[in-house]
């Protein structure tokens, strides 16, 4: 009885093929997942790269601000020097005209 039942079970539970196209569908999903994993793999270093780029750009911005600030300082000194030079020119003219 048990042998009959077991034989019947073996017949009832024999392996069956999946629906047609199963292997193709699996390969398509695998390929898609592979592409996704590849993108994700680069996302992590891309995130790190983005952080590094941000740090570099902040540093460069600070350096640029410093350069601009120093350049502005130089320009102010030069502007005041030129102004002084031309005022002195006027003063000399007035002085010579007044005979002093």
């Amino acid at each position, binding site marked *: 009885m048990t042998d009959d039942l077991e034989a019947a079970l073996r017949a009832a539970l024999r392996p069956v093929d999946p629906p047609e196209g199963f292997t193709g569908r699996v390969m398509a999903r695998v390929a898609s997942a592979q592409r996704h994993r590849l993108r994700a793999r680069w996302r992590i270093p891309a995130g790190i790269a983005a952080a590094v780029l941000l740090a570099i750009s902040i540093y460069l911005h600070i350096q640029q601000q410093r350069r*601009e*600030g120093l350049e502005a300082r130089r320009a102010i*000194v030069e502007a005041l020097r030129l102004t002084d030079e*031309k*005022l002195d020119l006027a003063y000399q003219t*007035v002085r010579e005209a007044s005979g*002093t």
Partner: protein
Amino acid sequence: MKLSCIGWLFGSLLLSGVACRAAEPRLVLPDFSDLTKKASQSVNITLDSSLLVMAGKFLDGDDPQDAAVREVIKGLSGIYVRSYTFGEDNAYRQSDIDAVNAQLTSPGWSRLVQTKDRKSGANVDIYVMVAGEKAIGMALIASEPRELTIVNIVGSIDLDKLRKLEGHFGVPGLDAATTASPPSKQK
């Protein structure tokens, strides 16, 4: 800066009772690209309020010159300089600066000094714009045979602060802040 000269100029202005009118102390400076091409050396400085503030952060408070400059620019909102040096005489024309002169004839601007040195051919015109008892703008046009310089300073020009620049640019000391005649030069 020539403190004695500045003091004399502003003092003259106050005594002459020049009327104060609301006008634009910042000049519209022409492109001057033609002059730049002809010049052997050119200086183009445009410092608006933001750049003046930025520059102020880089002025060393422990350095006497920087400290004095910082005080001068505190009340300023702009410094504009165009200066051209040429390799030969009369490389620029009067018409090149007519556009600037025209602005300085408008209400608000007063010419304080007009100097002409026939020997050297150097002419210096100095203008100011006053509000109340304070100068809020200054313009200087120095025309020399081989050099043209235009300076426009905008903002509250504090005479006392200008005084603190004595000696830093080879400027003599100021004897009096408001005199009708220029005091004697001190070195």
